[in-house]
């Protein structure tokens, strides 16, 4: 699959990136590791006239410690992230999720920013032009039908980023930069449950940095990823859990799920069931059941929507049993 023509720009400062994005808007896209965007471009799904390469932009590849949090540049590769001593010590949940992404080559190339901004996927979308031409244009392509959920008025393409689950559980935020200024948004407010526009970013914005609160002493964590094969695959469902138990009572429970909708979500009801209560087989079952009820996957990619929903319950239960 040959890529369509484009211009490759390689700015060295954040200001330059913002200015280029302001000038070209939707005709420009960011390229970091390229493991998502080049695949989209090879399928002819997007044809940006400009690719703005952020790998040489000062500051985007750094990890700094800031009182009780970590500031991670969006262009830090997933390999560097999982190997970073600061990340392993202060946010092991994030290191674990980064190590679960794809495979070694994809972690070497892929970045944290790119993994957060991973485009949503669907069997009817990630296809070549000739394949898609045999069907009516789908909602995500700007058409009027959904082939996955016939009759639907919204797109149900699936979000399958791994690090998002860990970052949601950790209460992370993202710093978005543009020529209009900067804004820091809690990750929970960043994602949108819409397969067509899965996050709040504007065309002239860059995700520059991720701010991650450090895991406190006693906060144990686990990222469980269920996929067909042990490498390469996206999660069918991924669950990140962060739990602190003191004297048998749960002081903190943060649970986030990816792969079960057009946006990753925080299992708020499950958290309410556990916060301040004892972690027992009973409360774990209740919390897992609450997550099951909250999950509303429509996609039947790889597994049926019902199976995917059941997986949410199983993984939440497994994670809590492991940490409780």
């Amino acid at each position, binding site marked *: 699959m*040959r890529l369509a023509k484009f211009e490759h720009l390689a700015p060295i400062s954040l200001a330059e990136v913002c200015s280029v994005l302001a000038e070209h808007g939707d005709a420009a896209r960011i390229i970091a590791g390229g493991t998502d965007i080049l695949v989209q471009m090879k399928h002819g799904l997007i044809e940006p006239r400009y690719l703005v390469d952020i790998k040489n932009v000062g500051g985007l590849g750094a990890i700094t410690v800031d009182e009780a949090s970590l500031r991670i540049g969006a262009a830090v590769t997933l390999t560097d992230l999982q190997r970073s001593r600061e990340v392993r010590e202060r946010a092991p949940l994030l290191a674990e999720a980064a190590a679960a992404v*794809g495979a*070694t*080559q994809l972690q*070497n190339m892929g970045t944290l920013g790119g993994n957060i901004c991973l485009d949503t996927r669907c069997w009817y979308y990630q296809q070549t032009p000739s394949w898609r031409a045999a069907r009516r244009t789908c909602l995500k392509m700007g058409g009027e039908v959904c082939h996955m959920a016939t009759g639907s008025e919204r797109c149900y393409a699936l979000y399958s980023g791994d690090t998002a689950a860990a970052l949601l559980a950790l209460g992370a935020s993202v710093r978005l930069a543009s020529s209009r200024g900067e804004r820091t948004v809690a990750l929970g407010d960043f994602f949108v449950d819409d397969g067509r526009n899965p996050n709040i970013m504007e065309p002239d914005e860059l995700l520059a940095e991720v701010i991650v609160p450090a895991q406190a002493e006693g906060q144990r964590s686990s990222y469980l990823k269920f996929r067909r094969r042990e490498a*390469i695959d996206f999660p069918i469902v991924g669950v990140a859990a962060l739990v602190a138990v003191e004297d048998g009572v749960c002081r903190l429970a943060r649970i986030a799920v990816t792969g079960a909708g057009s946006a990753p979500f925080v299992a708020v009801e499950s958290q309410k069931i556990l916060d301040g209560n004892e972690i027992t087989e009973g409360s774990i079952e209740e919390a897992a059941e609450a997550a099951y009820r909250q999950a509303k996957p429509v996609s039947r990619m790889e597994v049926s929507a019902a199976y995917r929903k059941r997986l949410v319950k199983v993984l939440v239960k497994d994670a809590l049993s492991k940490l409780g």
Partner: protein
Amino acid sequence: MKQLIELRINGIDHEIAVEPQDTLLEVLRERLGYTGTKRACDVGDCGTCTVIVNGRTALSCLMLAVEAVGKEIVTIEGLGTGDKLHPIQQAFVDYGAIQCGFCSPGMILAAKSLLDEDPSPGREEIRKAIGGNLCRCTGYAKIVEAIEAAAEHGNK
């Protein structure tokens, strides 16, 4: 619009005119003759296009040629010579880790990248290192054994 770039492949500098949309894989195979690097899925799902970039494995089908400027690229042609195989290649031969051979260049480079960093990896590290390389013939067992053997003999 073509731009003149310099790519360093297996220690040799190549000056070549490329377009921004030319992938490293296309340039390696079609322009520079390094056909040991293979194209199969072309979308980063199989690993046959694996090369080593500054010591770490990367998928050349998802790299633009212009992104490879200033980096040390190693392809399978950079291992061994016509007369003497690289120890990892020899181990693959000795342990029956090659059937059709299509995954082999990528597998061997994945192994090399691992052993250059960790000379005595455990099974799990080996499996993780080759996790991004698919093989439809061997079932992976002999590939893992060959890499273990190559590590054991102290050869990288």
